[in-house]
């Protein structure tokens, strides 16, 4: 019975979004209410426990919202001052074929950005570029969400990769090899999904010429980087090698004319790209400078529910690093860009006012929804609902568990909107199940991380960022409609490979 109660908040969210087609804010409000009621009446969580869980949820939401607000501010800055127009026109000069623009930007360029910044930044940067190139907003959002999802686990300078290693306590390099193996499946599936979104099966056929060799190169490069133990760079190097490979394949096949002149308005291409260059430079620079001592973090006490579920105390929860969190980096890049635009003479106070107003209008709805959804995730986690749910499925599936395992990774990302959090919730659990089934734990850990990676495409936070970046706020149900099937199919493919490796071939790595 407790499993059914644990399912209620998620069922409410899914039914509200996918069946009743409610806007995300309304679905989120109903889901947090159901989660609080279930936690209080059926999982022994009193008001003190709810204060801690909701408090943690709101502090995590603040962390994410700072990124969303700053990224939307940056987007409106480059839009109002004409930089995005210069970028788009130059993309068209380099890549004449709209199909190549669509595939290269959503599958690989977004993944390069994920390798550096992550935290939804690729979605907020690439979706508007695609829309301004003339692609349908809904297709653009779905393509970027799906296209970059393979790179999330190794992205953000390796934050999810570090987490799966920390929570499982297994050898990091061995997990890395297993992750690269599963990432090959995710790369191929997401590349095909993007092509299918563009033009159905004919587009998929055309895309295979690019996807297969590009994926092969990326896997080879990522394996090498894991071998060299450059953990933070696996995602970035993999995506960069893929980007270069696909562009070379395009030049080889289409033989476009040599680009002799770049488009420029008052701004040159370099001026237009300045904020993005600053983001890349600062994202690479700050980790080297080791300035982690400058941060804001929240402290939460330990708690045990009346049913005995223990939640450990948090000394530095939702740590916002002044030199490391994406928001300050994005804001600095926007300010530097404005300074440069001021030097050129395109900066006006009216434009700045418009940027601020548009940012506030666009962000408010997303912010409230995020508060509700993230606090729902924390109430579920801290009351023991999530672990009840996981334990029941593991007991129910038994030896065919490896087939069902990726759905936990996806579920974790769907609930929390984060691959890292999915690994925190389910990483140790997946490895424990693997050990109880006497199958290889490294493969299971690798699978968890990559399944969490593709599940980010369904994460409410990512979907909300994408909706606000594309003007589709309130139409989140339509976005879910486009991305749900490809994510579930990819998870199924990962499950089949996992089942073959663990239960049929009994493959052993690591240790």
């Amino acid at each position, binding site marked *: 019975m407790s499993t059914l109660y644990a399912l209620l908040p998620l069922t409410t969210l899914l039914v509200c979004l996918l069946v009743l087609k409610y806007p995300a*804010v*309304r679905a*989120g*409000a*109903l889901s*947090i*209410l159901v989660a*609080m009621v279930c936690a209080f009446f059926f999982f022994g969580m009193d*008001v*003190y426990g*709810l*204060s*801690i869980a*909701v*408090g943690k949820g*709101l*502090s995590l939401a*603040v962390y994410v919202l700072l990124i969303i607000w700053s990224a939307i501010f940056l987007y409106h800055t480059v839009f109002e001052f004409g930089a995005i127009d210069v970028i788009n026109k130059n993309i068209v000069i380099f890549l004449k074929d709209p199909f190549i623009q669509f595939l290269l930007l959503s599958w690989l360029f977004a993944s390069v950005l994920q390798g550096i910044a992550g935290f939804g930044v690729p979605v907020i940067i690439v979706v508007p570029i695609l829309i301004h190139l003339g692609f349908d907003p809904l297709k653009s959002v779905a393509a970027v969400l799906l296209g970059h999802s393979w790179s999330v686990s190794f992205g953000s300078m390796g934050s999810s990769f570090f987490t799966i290693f920390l929570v499982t306590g297994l050898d990091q390099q061995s997990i890395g090899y297993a992750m690269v193996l599963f990432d090959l499946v995710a790369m191929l599936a997401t590349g095909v999904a993007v092509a299918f979104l563009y033009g159905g099966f004919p587009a998929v056929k055309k895309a295979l010429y690019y996807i297969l060799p590009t994926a092969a190169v990326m896997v080879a490069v990522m394996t090498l980087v894991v071998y060299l133990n450059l953990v933070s760079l696996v995602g970035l190097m993999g995506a960069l090698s893929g980007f270069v490979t696909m562009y070379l394949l395009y030049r080889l096949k289409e033989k476009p004319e040599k680009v002799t002149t770049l488009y420029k308005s008052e701004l040159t291409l370099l001026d237009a790209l300045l904020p993005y260059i600053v983001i890349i430079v600062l994202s690479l620079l700050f980790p080297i400078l080791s300035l982690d001592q400058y941060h804001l973090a*929240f*402290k*939460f*006490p330990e708690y045990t529910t009346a049913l005995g579920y223990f939640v450990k105390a948090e000394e530095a929860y939702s740590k916002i690093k002044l030199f490391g969190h994406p928001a300050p980096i994005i804001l600095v890049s926007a300010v530097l860009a404005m300074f440069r635009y001021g030097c050129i003479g395109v900066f006006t106070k009216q434009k700045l006012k418009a940027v601020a107003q548009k940012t506030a209008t666009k962000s*408010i*709805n997303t*912010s*409230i929804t995020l*508060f*509700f959804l993230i*606090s729902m995730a924390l109430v579920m986690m801290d009351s023991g609902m999530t672990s009840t749910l996981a334990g029941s499925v593991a007991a129910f599936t038994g030896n065919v568990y490896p087939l069902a395992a990726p759905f936990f990774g996806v579920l974790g990302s769907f609930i929390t909107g984060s691959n890292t959090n999915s690994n925190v919730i389910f990483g140790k659990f997946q490895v424990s199940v693997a050990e109880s089934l006497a199958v290889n734990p490294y493969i299971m850990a690798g699978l968890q991380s990559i399944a969490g990676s593709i599940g980010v495409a369904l994460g409410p936070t990512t979907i909300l960022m994408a909706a606000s970046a594309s003007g589709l706020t309130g139409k989140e149900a339509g976005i879910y409609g486009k991305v749900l099937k490809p994510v579930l199919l990819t998870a199924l493919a990962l499950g089949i490979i996992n089942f073959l490796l663990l239960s049929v071939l009994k493959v052993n790595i690591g240790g």
Partner: protein
Amino acid sequence: MGKVFSDKKLAFVMILIVFALLYASVSLQIPTLGYVGVIGYAVIALLQSIKL
């Protein structure tokens, strides 16, 4: 009246106040603030979930 309750800016500010109350409650060990915060948060969610 309905418009006031469904106003997004007001809801946003109210949630931030709830956050301050909850954090003060757990860090300063004042349970009453926690009660007020949790009930307040449930009321905000309820008002956002019904179409006013």
